[in-house]
């Protein structure tokens, strides 16, 4: 019962956040400075998910050398090819190939 009620309220709240940004915040063009701030904030948030993926939100995991190498590979491939699939696959392959060697 708690799960259903919690999900209902959380879903409505999340939708309100999304709709408020799209409709209310976006009713008229934002000043260039604010828009730049928002874009940079979004980049930082997405980047935080990269580290969270490694270490976990509870800090149980760790950024290993193999994961760091795989990340560098993903950066290079994504930068050169702009291909997300290829970047992910190359990162996975680099990780698989190096995790046994460098840890």
């Amino acid at each position, binding site marked *: 019962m708690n*799960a259903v009620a919690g999900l209902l309220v959380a879903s409505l709240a*999340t939708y309100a956040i999304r709709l408020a940004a799209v409709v209310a915040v976006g009713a008229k063009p934002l000043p260039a400075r604010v828009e730049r701030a928002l874009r*940079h904030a*979004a980049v930082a948030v997405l*980047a*935080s998910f990269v*580290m969270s993926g490694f270490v976990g939100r509870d800090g149980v995991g760790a950024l290993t050398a193999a994961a760091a190498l795989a990340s560098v590979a993903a950066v290079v491939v994504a930068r050169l090819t702009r291909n997300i699939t290829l970047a992910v696959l190359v990162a*996975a392959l680099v990780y698989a190939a190096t995790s046994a060697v460098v840890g």
Partner: protein
Amino acid sequence: MLSWCHRLVRLIGEPVRGVATYQLAPTRNDAMTDTRHPSTAQAPASAPGRAPDPALAGDRPERAAWRDASSLIPAVVPLGLAMGVALGDTAAPGVVAWFSSLTLMAGASQLALFTQLDAGASILVAVGVVIVINARFLVYGAVMAPHFRGQPRWFRALGAAFVVDQSYALTTARWPGGHSDRAGFRRYYLVLVAVLGLVWSASVGVGIAAGPILPAWLPLEVVVPAMFIAMIVPGMRRLTEVAAAVVGLAAAGFLVGLPPGAEIAAAAVGGALIGAWSKERS
């Protein structure tokens, strides 16, 4: 069935026509120009019979959306499976946990909601955590707002529900500024979020249902970070954006163990400060 398809396509904004004769045909109000961005500045809104949106490179919006969305499938599927396994471990009924992938559409907050409730938190506290984690959608939505401005009310109401990390990254990478064809954008966005939503909810469902028998060799610890890297790196054009990314990495690295969402909030504030401080590139 066919007539329903035709009505749906008309509702979305594209007159029914054959593929061979395809041409973007905006209505009087179906064009928008953001003069701050060169790709859209090339296509004046009032020009009759103008070329399709340059960001689509002559491609159909649906095809471009499918290509963009499918590029994420190799990463979204394992992420959804892992999320499903984690959700299946909570006390929430499987159907409720799976339904959250449709209504919340945000893995971190889905998991946070049910784990908080499992830990005995009140609904108010659990929802508060979800709001903190999902406050980033305020940033995404504000950046994506030019794409929704001037669109039909139904599209703004529907489209807002699908503002997620992936739809934000893909849309803003393809259209760093605005777009020049509202109907084309609607079709692109709806196909994009439909594919991403289906893949996400299906993966979470499989993870919940078949969690214990999923192979342990899925390299989630690198696939998920690599997906986010590949989503942000191509769109980074300025040194200040690199600095913002470093701040985000540092926030997540140093603020582990704090209440859920703290690292996201810190990253957003740090990135915003860098963006506000940075100067417009000449």
